[in-house]
């Protein structure tokens, strides 16, 4: 299954300081100036087959959003413990006993294609 948690990012570039704008960290500048190739790469990682017109539109929009959200770095976050969840998380377990669950027919009811009580999917490997 494709992951949307990429482990690499291509297309990193160095960008010099821009005149007339507040000084921002180099990485932040790069982020705000996402290129069309960057967006195409991200769309690939996210498994969305964007058209050329969509890519063109999204580059500009993402640039504006990224510049705005990048301001999180200006908060006094030095040494602050990151918070991933609003409540303390505890692991929840239950007794290991069988309980009612969906039958195969119900589970497959929404499948685009099913065969022999299984999800039928396109090929997942190249043929050669």
């Amino acid at each position, binding site marked *: *299954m*494709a992951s*949307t948690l*990429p*482990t*690499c*990012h291509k297309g990193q570039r160095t960008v010099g300081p821009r005149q007339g704008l507040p000084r921002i*960290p180099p*990485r*932040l500048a790069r*982020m705000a100036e*996402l290129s069309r190739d*960057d*967006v195409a790469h*991200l*769309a690939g990682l*996210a*498994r*969305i*087959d*964007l*058209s050329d017109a*969509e890519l063109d539109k*999204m580059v500009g*929009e993402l640039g*504006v*959003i*990224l510049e*705005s*959200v*990048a*301001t*999180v*770095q200006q*908060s*006094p*976050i030095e040494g602050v413990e*990151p*918070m*991933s*969840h*609003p*409540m303390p*998380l505890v*692991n*929840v377990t239950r007794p290991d006993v069988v309980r009612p669950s*969906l039958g195969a027919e*119900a*589970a497959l009811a*929404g*499948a*685009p*294609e099913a065969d022999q009580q299984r*999800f039928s*999917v*396109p*090929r*997942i*490997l190249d*043929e050669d």
Partner: protein
Amino acid sequence: MTTDLTRASAADLADLLSKGETSSVEVTQALLNRTDAVDGDVHAYLHVDREGALATARDIDARRQAGEQLHQLAGVPIAVKDVMATQGLPTTCGSKILEGWIPPYDATVVTRLKQAGMPILGKTNMDEFAMGSSTEHSAYGPTRNPWDLERIPGGSGGGSSAVVASFQAPLAIGTDTGGSIRQPAAVTGTVGTKPTYGGVSRYGLVALASSLDQAGPCTRTVLDAALLHEVMGGHDPLDSTSINAPVPAVVEAARRADVKGMKIGIVRELTGEGFQAGVQARFDESVQHLVDAGAEVVEVSCPSFTAALAAYYLILPSEASSNLAKFDAMRYGLRVLPEGLDDPSAEQVMAATRDAGFGDEVKRRIILGTYALSSGYYDAYYGSAQKVRRLIADDFNRAFEAADVLVSPTAPTTAFKFGDKIDDPMAMYLNDVATIPANLAGVPGMSLPSGLADEDGLPAGCQILAPAAADERLYAVGAALEQRLLASWGGPLLGRAPELSAARSTSMGA
């Protein structure tokens, strides 16, 4: 008590039903007739389950006749946001990728409505996967604000706010990830609560951002919200983040409506600049009403709230990009084959399907989230946002040492016109500036109508925020404020909304 069944509150309907002065079938039919008359204009529903609702109503009427002890809200109809899985009823989340999907199971919230004997009228419209503040991002067309059909009903839960504001249902289920219950309530003159995170089960709620999402009630009165909150809430073993404690005493608090001696904190960062004059004026009056009711007002500062929007728009897309990875064209939902390929791979089918099935805003946020989580950027962006989230939670903790509840206007403006912000994502995101901090910290919040803004005659909302697990304070303060506002208006604010399709409504004869 009003005799128009479509305008009656859920509490009044429950009363009439228990006294045998009306039947659930009569109420359900009246609401369905109202939908026939007005929803062509409002478009609050994506799906109406006429037969299912009437079947439940008939069953409840028969059981009541037989003398069975029923839940207080038995027979009172409700609408459900289309993000909640409903067995046998379409659930699209406002997206083409789920068009025609019929879930094989019920969300826990839906199970509880059914256990209480509440007829489910239908599924309400929303921005696709709850991403938006206007319903303009619904793949099935926007919902219109009953106050002005040229204006947005808020979002993402604009269908749920409009359905109660247009008297098609006394109650609706909403979900709130950054304000999607409270902002729609504010711009439609209705009431909405986002409970404490974990207070209502998320099982069967199609996740947008799992650490922020929370379902809650959408109603026309504070007491109705409390009654529905009580039905929806409580521990669920199927949701590992569900709080294992009884539902706070929200109904009792709403009935008591007592704020004497309470400290009400005005959040300095959520007033004044950036808020429409009429919205601010109605908020100031609301504060004065609370003072008149015996509360004490203090000013509190939450300096990190100014960074909440930025943190939210890193955390939400990050979680959403992960949650929406499940729409892979393999097990349910849309499958689109890429053009020009004889034997496409699963990956190519997935990419073609997600391009065809997701709308612009969903794609934008998935790609933004994919980027924020990328190696090399993770610490700088997602990591920084998580630290800001901590600062916001700390701000709340300090503020709640000085005040029992916090108050602010719910949204910076009244309802805007369709198209005004659709091409400017950042302007759209700013609608949630006052509601987002509560989701980041997990604390409960409520919006209730504060009046009409002078400049445009449209509803404004007052937001109340309470510490985690102290949801009952929202209802104590909300009910006290509502009482005084109703007295000053001489009746419900929605009584001043223009009549919808009056001619057609009359000819249908409810």
